[in-house]
């Protein structure tokens, strides 16, 4: 039982565990099975004809349409995408905070369970699915995108806010209550200041993800750059599509750079 290996003795093949080998074999089988199931013919996919087709399609994106008129439209689309993300995230932050209070167990067990279920449901349906539903409910346009982002993000932020509220020390609010303050002021001045910084950080992080998401929600008709891209690709205007793609790329890179800067700044303060 007590045998010790020579220090630095080479590990032999016998040291490999059986279950690791089995798992690896299963994973390999799953990968092979997937390719077989999908029946993708990589031969034809990468044949000379297909590759030249793809090359021609890629080449048709150049040069991008840089007419001032179209550039203005694209800029408007980018601004709209940003606005959709901003308004959606703000709505979600407000709704998330409202749902986080019962979800943190401040209003009884029944309310806690109900609000947690609601938050989970909101969160587990992806934004794009919400967007297709909201296009039915509110008609085509950016407002559907706002609602879709707000619904999904409420689920995410509500859970995070609830955790932050639960983890905040209860003494400040307790002492305010004991000195005769009302429930709402006690929360606003006792607990909220403690969770505020964390809540803002969560909100900004979601805003960053939502800007990226808002750019593609347009594919199902929810406005912004996505709707423009979908539209121009459907009518085979690749030059215009290229401009929109460049705008999307720029938006994502700008958001990345800005959020890095902001995080560094918040870390210092």
């Amino acid at each position, binding site marked *: 039982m007590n045998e010790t290996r020579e220090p630095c003795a080479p590990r032999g093949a016998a040291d490999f565990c059986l*279950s*690791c080998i089995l*798992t*690896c074999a299963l*994973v390999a089988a*799953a*990968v092979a*099975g*997937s*390719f077989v*199931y*999908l029946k*993708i013919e990589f031969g034809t*996919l990468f044949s000379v004809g297909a590759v030249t*087709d*793809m090359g021609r*399609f890629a080449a048709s994106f150049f040069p991008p349409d840089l007419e001032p008129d179209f550039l203005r439209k694209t800029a408007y689309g980018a*601004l*709209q995408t940003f*606005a*959709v993300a*901003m*308004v*959606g995230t*703000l709505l979600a932050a407000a709704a998330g905070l409202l749902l986080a209070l019962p979800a943190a167990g401040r209003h009884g067990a029944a309310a806690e369970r109900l609000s947690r279920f609601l938050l989970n449901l909101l969160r*587990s*349906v*992806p934004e*794009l*699915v919400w967007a*297709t*539903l909201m296009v*039915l*409910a*509110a*008609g085509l*346009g*950016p*407002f559907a*995108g*706002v609602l879709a982002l707000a619904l999904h993000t409420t689920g995410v932020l509500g859970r995070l806010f609830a955790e932050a509220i639960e983890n905040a020390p209860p003494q400040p609010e307790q002492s305010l209550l004991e000195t005769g303050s009302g429930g709402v002021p006690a929360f606003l*001045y006792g607990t909220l200041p403690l969770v505020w910084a964390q809540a803002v950080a969560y909100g900004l992080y979601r805003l960053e993800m939502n800007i*990226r998401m808002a*750019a*593609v929600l347009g*594919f*199902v008709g929810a*406005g912004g750059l996505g709707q423009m*891209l*979908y539209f121009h*690709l459907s009518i085979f205007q690749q030059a215009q599509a290229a401009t929109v*793609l460049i705008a*999307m*790329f720029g938006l*994502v*890179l700008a958001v990345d750079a800005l959020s890095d800067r902001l995080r560094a700044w918040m870390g210092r303060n």
Partner: protein
Amino acid sequence: MNASAQALPPPDRDPDARARLGWTLVALVLLWPMLVLAEFRPWALFDAGNLRVMGSFLGGFLPPATSTEFLGYLLEATLETMAIATAGIALALLLAVPLSILSTRALAVSKIGPGPWRLGGRMVRAAGRAVLTFLRAIPEIVWALMFVRVLGLGPAAGVLALAITYGGMLGKVYTEILESTDTRPTRAILEAGGGRFVALAYGLLPNAAQELTSYTVYRWECAVRASVIMGFVGAGGLGQLMDQSMKMLNGGEAATILFVFLVLVLFADALSATLRKALA
């Protein structure tokens, strides 16, 4: 002493009230153009036409569709979604592994000391990083939308789109994992004259393998979700089926598909947790 005590505000007033009110007003003024741009019209929700469409659609949710023929399609689409995710990740690995080995600083021979290839090495690494950034900067659904135009509707577009975006993401994270583990064994091997491949296999991987596999499995879980989403632009699987049912306003089918989607996500979660434990 007495005068300053009198100058204090009454104790039940928020000393910051005026500043807070001011900032709120500024924020509202800034928010106004955003609301206009986003065409914020809550009353559209209560428009009679929209209410009728939504009402009949949601009314159709019950009972969910359970005909054998539809369930057959559903099973096929679910399997297709999983297969797209798995095949996509497998192809993404083909991109991510070489690029991350190329661009990680942990395996840089030129880092050891001044040599003829110092600048060249740095440029190769920068180029590798730039390629990875480019690959992941465009969301997978945009790639899918474009591949559908060239390859036609079906899973091939989804697999390629996943391979590109996830190749970029995996490559970036692999690079970072390789740099953040203990690099001293690797340095020792490199300084003793060992090759890069030997340094990778015996210096880096023993420390980093667990984190690398666990991140890959986690990404597979995300890929399952992403492959459902990509179906909405025609890249096959569950999403394409959901898109069709929603466009035809078939509430019963949409309800069943949504339910299957939620179960699939839970299943992928559980499977990825077990796999991570088994491979740890």
